[in-house]
């Protein structure tokens, strides 16, 4: 059903009068002016037109849509968490203590020697990690110009490398869906600043040759970077640091269950080996004899966030890890992998690669994967990630996470199978049972209307 725009419910234009000279101020301001009850109804209705983790299964591959424990929200809402970043360290021992503990937890979980919490998102973590690699090479007087990235990697990897000024060398997969070590050998050179990898990769496959890969990268003086998007497969089973990775980022909004918030905020802490610790961003939290303090690492890359990162998100991640502990974390990965494998058994679509871990990529085959996904919406579930990675034709990239029960997985499989069994006409016209029908993306892009003012102009 349709909910009018706030502006359609009533706006008001006020003349702006002030004690300031007129030439310093604007003349007027027009904005919606809903009463609080109207406001509450507006956003309540909007929320009802939105699908979240508590609406049903949300098996978006590589997104790790877990349940977000409510008590972490309560902690984030505490008055003593609401402090200004420019306070003295003496007066913020609680915040610094929690950040230090989280650094330690993440270091242990990833097998890394030092962790910065400053990057405010996974992509920001990648940027930070690549800047660290760059600083390392520069400190060594080493001019390097290339970052190697498997073609099945997350788009952020490519964009990040470019943002840091590197040329991107794209690496094909082998027939088994993993890194082609021969192609890697060919790509590596003294120009190689880093290889960015996800493990398990976006097909859910563990890179079994990871130690050999690490050795190859290190042999040419490169840095091995771990994209933490798929860390939920490995908690307590394997650690990037132990595999030879030098730098990694963590997506706390994936692995550590902080809410995705409709796209964010997340947080993308970065872990490094001892050798790279000196390059971490400024400031960095460390323990002292009497408490905690911040300092600037010796060869710090500087700042990647205006302050210290997405604090309240980090706080929630801390609370989640505190709650689960070793046993809970290990079980989370075990059940995530169990769920992916069980779900895969129940669905009719072909799954070309395996053995996979916490996610798998099915192929919609003759169907358009995007259409198949729209059809799944009609069964009250959220569809998987579609059309990516491209190594699987018409990919349906599926990650149920550990939070789904067998019963829910069966329902989800039924939705997959109903889509699979649907004819072309049906899926092309799906969905039919959602708040909105299929939305025209082309006209949105061809004629961008990005504000209600643009809509008004049109009329």
């Amino acid at each position, binding site marked *: 059903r349709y909910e009018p725009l706030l502006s359609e419910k009533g706006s008001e234009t006020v003349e702006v009068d002030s004690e300031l000279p007129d030439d310093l101020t604007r003349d007027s301001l027009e904005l*919606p002016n809903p009463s609080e009850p109207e406001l509450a109804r507006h956003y309540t209705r909007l929320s009802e037109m939105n699908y979240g983790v508590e609406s049903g299964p949300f098996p978006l591959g590589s997104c790790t849509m877990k349940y977000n424990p409510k008590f972490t929200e309560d902690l984030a809402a505490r008055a003593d968490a609401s402090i200004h970043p420019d306070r003295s360290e003496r007066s913020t021992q609680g915040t610094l203590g929690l950040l230090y503990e989280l650094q330690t937890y993440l270091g242990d979980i990833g097998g890394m020697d030092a962790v910065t919490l400053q990057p405010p998102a996974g992509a920001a973590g990648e940027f930070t990690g690549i800047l660290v690699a760059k600083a390392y090479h520069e400190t060594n007087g080493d001019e390097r110009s290339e970052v190697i990235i498997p073609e099945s990697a997350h788009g952020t990897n490519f964009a990040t490398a470019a943002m840091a000024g590197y040329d991107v060398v794209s690496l094909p997969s082998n027939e088994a869906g993993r890194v082609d070590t021969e192609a890697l050998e060919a790509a590596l050179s003294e120009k190689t600043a880093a290889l960015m990898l996800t493990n398990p990769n976006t097909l859910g496959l563990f890179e079994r040759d990871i130690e050999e890969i690490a050795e190859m990268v290190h042999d040419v003086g490169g840095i091995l970077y771990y994209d933490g998007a798929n860390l939920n497969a490995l908690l307590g089973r394997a650690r990037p640091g132990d595999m030879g990775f030098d730098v990694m980022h963590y997506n706390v909004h994936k692995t550590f269950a902080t809410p995705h918030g409709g796209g964010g905020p997340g947080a993308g802490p970065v872990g490094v080996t001892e050798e790279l610790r000196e390059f971490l961003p400024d400031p960095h939290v460390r323990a002292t004899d009497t408490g905690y303090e911040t300092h600037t690492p010796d060869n710090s890359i500087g700042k990647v966030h205006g302050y210290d990162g997405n604090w309240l998100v980090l706080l929630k991640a801390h609370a989640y890890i505190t709650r689960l502990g070793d046993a809970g974390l290990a079980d989370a990965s075990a059940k995530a992998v169990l769920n992916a494998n069980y779900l895969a058994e129940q669905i009719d679509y072909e799954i070309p690669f395996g053995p996979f871990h916490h996610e798998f990529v099915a192929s919609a085959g003759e169907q358009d994967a995007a259409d198949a996904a729209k059809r799944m919406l009609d069964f009250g579930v*959220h569809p998987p990630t579609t059309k990516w990675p491209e190594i699987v034709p018409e990919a349906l990239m599926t990650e149920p996470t550990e939070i789904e029960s067998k019963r829910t997985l069966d329902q989800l499989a039924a939705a997959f199978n109903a889509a699979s069994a649907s004819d072309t006409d049906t899926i092309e016209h799906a969905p039919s049972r959602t*708040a909105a029908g*299929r939305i025209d993306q082309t006209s949105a892009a061809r004629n961008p209307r990005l504000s209600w003012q643009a809509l008004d102009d049109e009329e």
Partner: protein
Amino acid sequence: MSGSPYAPHTASETTAMLDAIGVDSEEALFDIPESVRFDGEFGIDAKSEQAARRAVASTLADNDDLTEFLGRGHYDHYVPSVVDHLADRSEFITSYTQYQPEVAQGFLQALFEYQSMLVELTGLEVANCSMYDAATALGEAATLAERLRSISGTRVLVPDLLHEGRRGVLDNYVAGSDLTVETYPTADGNVDREALTEQVDETTAMVYAENPTVRGTIEEGLDTVGDLADEHDALFTLGTDIVALALLEEPASVGADVVVGDGSALGLGSAYGFGLGLFACRGDRELLRQVPGRLVGASEDSDDRRAYTLTLQTREQHIRRERATSNICSNQAWVALRTAMHVASLGPDGLVELANDSVRRARETAGRLDELTGVQAPVHDRHHFREFVARVDQPAEAIAADLEAEGYAVHAVGDHEIQVCVTEANEQALDGFVAAVSEVVR
């Protein structure tokens, strides 16, 4: 406790699922070489929800209970309770980026409304909700300038007083580009327009100014800065915040091409620097192709009803990869939702009133401090917004420490300069604060 409290599996369900897969243990599902298996411990004990909550709260309680008179880019305004309650609805906070718009109309519309509010506040045509904070938004503005074909220069000019966090991030954002960052001088807090005129030329890619400035002063004659940038084919990027936008000169009217700054001054309150970067820009074709971040556009669904969707996605990393306009993926959507709710809750009247109060409070508080022996305030002979710098006869660091002992936090921004920010969040403590200052400045 032997498992994740959020995994629903009973023992018999686990068994049934393993059977269906055809393996006899969860262990058997992990295709990990022995040599890289981890069999150590993190040493973190699992806790009940109650115990976990108590543990975190207990550490948090080590933060002192101070009344903060702090600003400099991160502000504490009172967030109406309704914002918390509505933004915390699980359909919003637990949802993902809107890749399936048919089941995400609610969030898309809310972001479209946020964009529209920014359009009204800035006078520009395009706004997004993707920037992490003011600093990264500034960094993105600079790299946007580099991508624009209409701009040929490489020098980014920023004020000498630029906040250290913003400057640091900017330096990193341009590190992979051909851009260089230079400062231009300020005069009594504001842009030294004469000096700036000397510096701007055809090699200039971007001129950045702030209003209000980091020291709380309100700029005068920004239109001449806009003209200057325009004349030399440089991007004029203006830094501000969402409250100030309600009162101060409309960025578009002074020639700003891009607006960045702090959006979370509304909607989030003090959050240790966690926030939302404003980002708005002109809407011409070239900018639309090059703008970073997620954009929501209006469209129609199969029944020709109005509907919303992410749009112009070919700019983004998940499609364009290394040629994307930014690497941004996870963004600040939920903070933008909160900011939009707060703006809507205030309405234009309430927002203008809040902005006017910000001028009044800074002026009145500076006046009260100026009456004290040992303090001169404000240092800058300017109009102020929300905050101001005061000169203290004693060393500023000592003053700040003494005030902290009395329960108040201020910035020490120079050897003998403190900075004081007043909002409705600390106004009720003003009498005590002024009394404390009068004690410690002697």
